[in-house]
Structure formats: C-alpha cells, structure tokens
C-alpha cells in the first residue's frame, strides 16, 4: 500500500490538534476516582441506543430510495426534491423542533388525524424516534446520494442493456459499488441521531436519551455529572461509525485486489 506524503500529515496536525483539545481537557477534568453514573443515566443510555437503532433503520429504509433516485434524476423534479431535502438540513434543530410541534402536535391537522387512530406524538417513544428521524434523514440522503453518484453510469447502462430491472440494478450494482460511501452515510446518520438535542428538547423531552440527560445532569449536579455521561455516550456510540469505516476500508481493499 502507498503511504500518503509526510507533508500531508504535517498539514493535518492543526486540524487534529484543534479537534483533540477539548477531549484532552476532558481527560484532565474527569474525576476518575469518583467515576459514577447519576440516577437515570443508564436509562438514558438504553433509550438512546434502542430508539436510536429504530430511527437509524427508518432513516436507511426511507433514505436509500430517495438518495438513489436523486443520484440519477434530472431537471425540475430533481431540483424540487433537492430543496425538500436541503431545507430541513439548513433549518436549525431548535426551529425544527418548534415546527414539528406545530405540524404533529395533538391539535394540528396531522396530529388530530393520528389521535383518531389512538396515536399521540407527545413526549413518547414514537415522538422521540420521529425527532431523530427528522434530524438524521437529510444528512443521510445527502451523503448516500453522493455515494450513488460515484457509481459509473456506464456500469448501470450496461446492466440495463443486459436486461437488468431497476430493482436488480439498484440491488446488484449500485448498492455494492456505493457501499463505502453508504457506510459513511450510515455513520453520519447514527452520529446525528445520537447527538440530537435541539429537536428533542422541544418536541420529545421524554423519553430522555443521553443529550437531554446531559442537560439535566448539568442542571442538577453540575458539570462533573456531564463528564461521566459524556464518556459513556462516546463509549457506546463510537462502535457504529468505527464499524462503518472498517467496512469502507475493507471494500476499498477488495476493489484494489480486483483491479488487474
């Protein structure tokens, strides 16, 4: 394997240092001898991980077809769809939460319709999942679309000529060829869902995941309780993106080996 030039490493140092400073500080600030969870922290971890996994599934299921279509669409329909994805992406999470309350609250048109079916989206697991879904979906679609766009058009054209259906082209060609980029998109969606605070604090304050618990720990016990939960948040949420990156690397290696 070829190594990147040493100059690139030197030029990377400022960025790496800047990113590392707060966490090196965190190591120093943590009271390792009194490292213990505040009451309810473990509930918050379970809430974030379990409901976050549900949201991630929904994000992938709903986002993949959209991203694939966006990568190939042309003209006005694409522009409209792009705007529909970009607008929530640009909307600050706090404002998004406010909009969700108005759009899905019990007295909104959508909310009253759901209420007739006995479903309420107020501070319950469904509302929490919806908040994470809104938070992560636009990021996922943008990243996945870029991944699909990298798949050479000639390969898809060849598939079509050989009689592959759209489903076969998606499943057998686009998905495997774009898998590295898609893994990054999944990692991004997971990170976004786990850290979601702005939407959640307005729209789904309960059940309380890790970000809201961080806020409450600060209110009730001060910053030390925040550090403890932050360590656990990193511990439990890092494996997903790390696994995604490992997958990316493995795919890249396989592809290199396949080349003549």
């Amino acid at each position: 394997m070829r190594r990147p030039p040493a100059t690139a490493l030197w030029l990377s140092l400022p960025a790496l240092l800047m990113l590392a400073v707060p966490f090196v500080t965190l190591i120093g600030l943590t009271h390792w001898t009194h490292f213990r969870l505040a009451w309810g922290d473990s509930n918050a971890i379970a809430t974030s991980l379990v409901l976050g996994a549900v949201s991630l599934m929904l994000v992938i299921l709903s986002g993949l077809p959209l991203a694939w279509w966006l990568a190939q669409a042309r003209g006005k329909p694409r522009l409209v769809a792009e705007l529909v994805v970009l607008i929530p992406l640009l909307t600050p999470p706090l404002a998004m939460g406010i909009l969700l309350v108005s759009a899905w609250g019990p007295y909104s048109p959508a909310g009253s319709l759901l209420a007739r079916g006995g479903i309420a989206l107020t501070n319950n697991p469904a509302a929490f999942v919806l908040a994470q879904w809104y938070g992560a979906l636009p990021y996922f679609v943008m990243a996945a679309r870029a991944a699909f766009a990298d798949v050479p058009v000639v390969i898809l054209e060849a598939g079509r000529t050989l009689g592959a259906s759209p489903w076969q082209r998606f499943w057998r060609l686009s998905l495997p060829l774009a898998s590295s980029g898609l893994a990054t998109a999944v990692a991004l969606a997971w990170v976004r869902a786990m850290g979601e605070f702005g939407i959640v604090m307005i729209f789904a304050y309960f059940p309380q995941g890790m970000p809201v618990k961080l806020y409450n720990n600060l209110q009730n016990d001060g910053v030390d309780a925040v550090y403890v939960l932050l360590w656990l948040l990193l511990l439990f949420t890092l494996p997903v993106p790390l696994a995604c990156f490992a997958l990316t690397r493995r795919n890249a290696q396989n592809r290199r080996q396949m080349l003549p």
Partner: protein
Amino acid sequence: MAFLRYSALLLGMGLTASALAGNDIHVTYAGSMGKVMDEGLGPAFARQQNSHYQGQGQGAYGMARLLASKKLTADVFVSITPGPMRILKQAGLIDNAVPVASTSMVIAYNPKGKYAQQFAALNGNDSRWLDLLATPGLKFGRTDPVNDPKGQNIVFTLLLAEKFYQKPGMAEKIMGGVQNPAQVNLEGGLLTRLESGQVDAAAGYESEVRSAHLPYLSLPDAINLSNPAEAKQWYDTVSFTLKDSQGHDKTLHTQPLVYYAAVLKNAPHGEQTGQAFIDFLRSPQGQQLFQQYGYAAAKGDAIWP
C-alpha cells in the same frame, strides 16, 4: 503580505474589543427573564451608562452551576427563588443577593383553544378552575420539576389549592404524576406548545405570561406563592419528593417567588460595574421597567441577613 495585513487587522480588532470591554456588562439570568432583561433593563442600563450590555439566559440551576464551576463568568446573576443563589454562595462567589422583583404562579391558557371561554369566565376565588383543569382530554402543560423551579412551583400551587379549597386528591388528578410525560416539557417546548395552540393551558409566572401577552387566570395569594409573609405559616405545609442523583428521595419545600440579583466576586468587568447594574434594577426607573414587563415589586429582604 496580505496574510500579514489581515492578521494585523484581526489583532487590532481583538485589542479594540478588549479596550472597549472596560465599561461593558455581562449579565446572566434565569431563562424566563429573557424579555425584560434583553429588551427592557439591559438596553436601558447600557444607554444610561453609555456602555454595552450582554445578556445570557438559561435554566436557573444550570446557569448557577456553570458559574459556580467557573465554566462561565459574568458580572451579575439574576434568578428567581433563593435556590440558585445558594449554589453561588456555597462556591464562595457571592456574599449576598438582594430582591429586585417578584411574581406569582398563574394558569395561562390558549386564547384560541376549545376551553378558552370557560377559562375566561373563571377566577381564582373558587375551585372551578381546578375542576376545569381536571377535565379529561384537556391538555395541560408545565415544566420539569426535576430541573426547573417553575416546574416545582406548579406542583406546590396545586398541592396548596387542594388544601385551600378542600378538594383532596385534586392535585394528583390534574397532574397524573409529578413528572407525567404528557404534561412536562422543557421551558422552550412548553412555550412553543402554548403559542402554537398544542396545549389548552399551562403553568406560568405572571411576569412571563404578561410579557408574552397571553390570557391567564390569577390565583389568590394563599396558593400563588408570591407572598413571603405566607411562607412559614401556610406555604411550608406542603412538600413533595423527587429522586436525587444517587436515586434517593429528596423532599422539596416552597421558596418565595422573588427575583434576586447578586454581583459575582470574579466579575470580569469589575464588581463596581455589577453593583451599578443591581442599583439600576432597584432604582425607580428599573422598577418601572420591571412593572412594564409584568413583574411585581421586590418583596422581602436580602437572602442572608
């Protein structure tokens, strides 16, 4: 060369900012005071002193803890109830805190909601408002007693009301549990729900509800927690418990709804600047601004005699 020039420019801007900082003031306050601080008192003080005002609001306890752990510095801290001030006193950051305004618990309601007419026809002199709040299907909102003094205060108000009107069990019937997810939100979430008409009624302070121009139901002194004179004899007869960070029960008691202000000993712009701001809050002009934003006059004495 251009790079050098821009660096020099940036450096110059930094120097100018720190030179100007001499007569700046940085005020931290309990989140619910945003309007009166940032639109009323802060700008008026800045005009009077020909200085620059910077306000920062957040949940009172969280703000107090950030200040106490020196993660944040400010010249003045203004908050409701003595609780957050005690955190600063323990951290050795303040000597005392003086009352600057007061308020009372009220029930705000959605003017376009389906219960608006019924609320408008009621007053706090009899217990009909309790029955209305307990109506099945009525959506009542309040903040979290776990992290917000206001969330605790509405629990006290309802507990006092069931005693005052002799309606045992009424508080529980209305609340459905102290931390009932169907009712409890963070401050911002509750305000959003009230203003976008997604709740029918919400617990609030008279000051903020009037600032927001929402219709509300006033309650008698015996239950609105505004009167320090009632504290020992009557308010203190109710309490409730919450879990602390170790999971143990802690018992909460009422605290008078008085706004206190204190100068911080590590004030970045000097304790004198901080004191000038507090003097302004207590001056006739400051008190008039408080009143204009729906606050009542300061009640009682400094927290520590």
